[in-house]
C-alpha cells in the first residue's frame, strides 16, 4: 500500500467526514491493524472521539474489525474509501437505467449506509411528499425497490452474530431474499414513522454496479472499433454470459449462436444485425481486439467472452493514451513497439519505429525513467571477442506499469482534492455569505413574502461577489467532473488487477 494512496485516503476522509475521522483513518492506514487503545495513544484523541470515528468508518464499510483472542483490532479498507468519490456515478447509472425513483433510493441508502426497506421508502416518500414535479408514490417506490433487489443492486447487510462465549460479534453475509412489502403497511408507516418495526437491513451492492461498468466499457469499445451493431452483439453476449458464468470469471462459459440469434431477432430496429449476425461475430472475433473467441462449432458456433483479455486490452489502451500525452506520440510508438515485440534490443527499436537514432534513444530512456518500460541485461557468455558489449533487452512489465499508472492517478486525485479545499478556503467568506443569503431567501419564499423584500436580501451580494461566486462554482464543478473521470480511469486499472 503506497504512500500516495495514503495521502489520497486521508484527503477524502477529511472531505467527507472531517478532521477527526481523518486522523483515525490515517493512523489505521499507516499501521495496518490496531486496537482502540493504540489508536488513542498515537493520535492523542480521547476515547469517545476514537470510538465515534471508528463507528463512522465501520458503518460505511470503510474499516473492519477482527477479533483475536479477546482483542479487537481495526483495519482500514482504503479501496472502499476511494469508492466514496464514485457515488455520483452510481446515481447516474441508476437514473439512466431505472429512473428517478431508483436514483433516490440508492442515494438515500448510500447516505444511510444501511437501512431497513420500510424506513428507507417511507423517509424518501415523506421527503418528496410535496414535490409535484417528481410525482412519487409509495407504490412506485416499492416496486422500484423490489426490482433493484431482484437485480441485486441492493442486498441485505451482513448480520452480526455472537459466537458462544465471546462478546465480539461476527458479521455474517446472508443471502438476500427479495422482500414482500405490503403497500398498506407502508402507507401507515408514512404517517407514523416512529413505529416501524422492520429490522432487515439493506445496503448497496457495489459489485453489481461495477459489473455494469465493465460491461458498458466493453460494449463501448466494440462500438468504437467496429460499429454500434457490434456493440449490440457484445451486449447480447454479455447478457448470455451472466446466465451461466460467475460474475468475475476470466472467461465466460460458451454462448451458443442459436441463443444469440433468438435474442437478436427481438431487436426489431436492427435489421442489419439480424441479417448478418454470424458475420458480425466473425468480424468481432478477428478484429475486435480479441474480446470474443469462437469456442466451438456445435450448433452453428459457440462463442465466449474473454473478459480478462479485454481488461488487458483496455488497460493497454489507457497506458497508450497516458504515454502519448506525457511523452508524445513518438514515445507511444516506441512503447507499443516494445510491448508488441515482448523483448527487443535498442537497435531494433530504432529500425522498426523509424525514428532518428538520437531521438529514439532519448525517448526510450525517457520511457525508462518514467518506469513505463524496463530493461533486462543479457550476458553473451560464449563471446570471445574483446569488446564484450552486453545486450540490453527492453520490455514492458504490464503489471508494474499499471501500478505506476495507478500511483499517478492517486497523485492526481489527491492534488485535485487539495486544490479543491484550497479553493473553498480561499473563498470561504463569499461562499458562506452566499449560503446564508440562500437560506434566508428560501425561508422568505416559504413564507411567501413580497418579491421586493426578497430582492433586497439578494442584493446584499454585490455584483463582483456574484460573478466571483459563479466562477468558483464553475471551477468546483470542473474539479468534480475531473475527479469522476479519474475515478473511471482508476476503475479500468483496478479491473485489470482483479485478475491474478
Amino acid at each position, binding site marked *: 500500500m503506497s504512500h500516495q494512496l495514503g*495521502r489520497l485516503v486521508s484527503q477524502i476522509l477529511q472531505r467527507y467526514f472531517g478532521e477527526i475521522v481523518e486522523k483515525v483513518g490515517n493512523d489505521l492506514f499507516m499501521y495496518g491493524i490496531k486496537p482502540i487503545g493504540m489508536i488513542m495513544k498515537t493520535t492523542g484523541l480521547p476515547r469517545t472521539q476514537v470510538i465515534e470515528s471508528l463507528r463512522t468508518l465501520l458503518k460505511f464499510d470503510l474499516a473492519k474489525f477482527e477479533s483475536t483472542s479477546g482483542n479487537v483490532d481495526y483495519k482500514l479498507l482504503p479501496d472502499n474509501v476511494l469508492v466514496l468519490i464514485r457515488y455520483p456515478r452510481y446515481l447516474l447509472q441508476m437514473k439512466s437505467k431505472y429512473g428517478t425513483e431508483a436514483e433516490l433510493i440508492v442515494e438515500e441508502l448510500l447516505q444511510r449506509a444501511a437501512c431497513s426497506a420500510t424506513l428507507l421508502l417511507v423517509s424518501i416518500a415523506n421527503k418528496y411528499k410535496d414535490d409535484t414535479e417528481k410525482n412519487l408514490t409509495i407504490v412506485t417506490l416499492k416496486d422500484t425497490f423490489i426490482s433493484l433487489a431482484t437485480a441485486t443492486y441492493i442486498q441485505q447487510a451482513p448480520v452480526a452474530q455472537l459466537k458462544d462465549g465471546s462478546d465480539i460479534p461476527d458479521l455474517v453475509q446472508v443471502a438476500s431474499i427479495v422482500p414482500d412489502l405490503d403497500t398498506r403497511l407502508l402507507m401507515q408507516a408514512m404517517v407514523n414513522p416512529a413505529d416501524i418495526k422492520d429490522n432487515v437491513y439493506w445496503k448497496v451492492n457495489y459489485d453489481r454496479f461495477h459489473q455494469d461498468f465493465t460491461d458498458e*466499457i466493453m460494449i463501448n*469499445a466494440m462500438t*468504437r*472499433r*467496429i*460499429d*454500434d*451493431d*457490434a456493440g449490440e452483439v457484445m451486449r447480447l453476449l454479455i447478457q448470455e454470459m451472466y446466465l451461466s458464468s460467475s460474475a468475475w470469471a476470466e472467461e465466460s462459459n460458451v454462448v451458443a449462436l442459436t441463443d444469440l440469434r433468438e435474442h437478436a431477432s427481438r431487436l426489431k430496429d436492427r435489421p*442489419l444485425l439480424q*441479417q*448478418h449476425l454470424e*458475420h*458480425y461475430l466473425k*468480424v468481432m472475433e*478477428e*478484429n475486435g*481486439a480479441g474480446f470474443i473467441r469462437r469456442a466451438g462449432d456445435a450448433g452453428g458456433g459457440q462463442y465466449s467472452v474473454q473478459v480478462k483479455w479485454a481488461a488487458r486490452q*483496455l488497460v493497454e*489502451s*489507457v497506458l*497508450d*493514451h*497516458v504515454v*502519448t*500525452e*506525457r511523452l508524445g*506520440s513518438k514515445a*507511444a*510508438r*516506441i512503447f*507499443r*513497439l516494445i510491448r*508488441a515485440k515482448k523483448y527487443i534490443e535498442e537497435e531494433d527499436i530504432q529500425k*522498426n*519505429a*523509424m*525514428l*532518428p537514432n538520437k531521438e529514439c534513444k532519448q525517448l526510450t530512456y525517457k520511457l525508462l525513467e518514467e518506469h513505463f518500460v524496463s530493461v533486462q541485461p543479457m550476458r553473451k557468455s560464449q563471446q570471445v571477442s574483446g569488446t564484450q558489449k552486453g545486450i540490453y533487452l527492453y520490455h514492458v512489465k504490464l503489471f508494474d506499469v499499471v501500478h505506476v*499508472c495507478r500511483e*499517478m*492517478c492517486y*497523485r*492526481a486525485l489527491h*492534488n*485535485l482534492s*487539495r*486544490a479543491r479545499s484550497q*479553493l473553498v478556503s480561499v473563498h470561504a467568506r463569499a461562499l458562506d455569505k452566499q449560503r446564508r443569503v440562500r437560506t434566508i431567501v428560501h425561508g422568505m419564499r416559504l413564507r411567501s413574502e413580497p418579491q421586493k423584500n426578497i430582492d433586497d436580501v439578494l442584493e446584499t451580494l454585490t455584483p463582483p461577489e456574484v460573478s466571483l461566486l459563479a466562477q468558483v462554482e464553475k471551477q468546483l464543478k*470542473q*474539479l468534480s467532473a*475531473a475527479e*469522476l*473521470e*479519474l475515478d*473511471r*480511469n*482508476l476503475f*479500468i486499472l483496478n479491473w485489470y488487477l482483479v485478475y491474478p
Partner: protein
Amino acid sequence: MSAKSEDAIQDKIINAIKKIPKGISAAQMAAVVPELSSAELVGAINKLLQQGLIDLYKQNGTLIYKLKNQSTQQIVKGADNEEKVVYNLIEEAANKGIWIREIRNQSNLSNPQLTKILKSLESKKLIKAVKCVNASKKKVYMLYNLEPDRSISGGAWYQDQDFESEFVDILNRQCLRFLQQRADKIRNNPRGPIAGRTQSYATAVEVQKYITDLGISKVKLEVEDVITILNTLVYDGKAESNVYPDGSKVYRAIESLIPPPGLVQVPCGVCPLLHKCYSTGLITPQDCKYMTEWLEQ
C-alpha cells in the same frame, strides 16, 4: 535511335541478364524491352556481343545469353597483380562492401600501397567507396556498378547517410489518410460487416500506388518500404494489420478502444513535475500554476 537511348537499352538488357545468372532466351529478352522491334533488338544484342559484355550459348536447342564475367573482362586492361588481388577481394564482398582494414589484412599490402591502389581503381570507376549508415565513419568498398545493400545504405530512408525523419513523418501521415478514407466503410455497411471490412482494408500495394501517384517521394518506394511505414502506423495504434489468405498484408485504420482517460484530462496527468509535487515544499498543488490555468480556461 540516339546514342543515349541505345545506352539505356543496353543497360536494361544487361540488368535483365544479370538477374538470371543462368542466362535468358531471346524471347525473354524481347519481353524486357518491348519497345524494340525484333530487328533493333538483334542489332542491340550484336553490339553487346561485340563489346564482349555478353556471351552466347546453346542450350537444349535454344540460344541463351549470359553475362560475361566482368572481372576478367575489365580488369585486364592495364592492371597489375596487386590491383587484381584487391579487386577480387572487393568483388567477393559484393554489395555488402568491404572495409579497408579487412582488405589490408587479407591482401597483406602496406597501407600507402593499398591506398594508392584503391585510388586508382576508384578513378577508373571500377570500385566506389560507400559510407555506412550504422557507423558514420566507416567506409566500405564495392564494385562501381553495384547498388549498396540496405544494411549499408539504409534504403529509401537515408539521404547521404542521414535519416530523413520528416520524410517518414509525411509518409506516415499520408498512409494514415489513405486508410482513414475507407475506414468508415465497415460501419453499418448495408452489405454486412464482412463486406464492409473488406472495403475498409487496403493492401500495401494499393497504398504504394497512392503514395507514388501523390508524387511526394523522390525515390521509388518499394512495397517493402511502404509496409515499413504502415507498420509504424500499427505501432502508433492507428491501424491494425491482417493477412489475406493469399499471404498479402492488409491494413485498416482503427480508433483506440477508449476515449482519452481521466488521467490525461487533468493537468497533473501530463505534468512533468508530477513526481516532484508534494503537499509541502516548492511544488505543491495548492499554488500550482498549471492547475490555476486549467481552472480558468
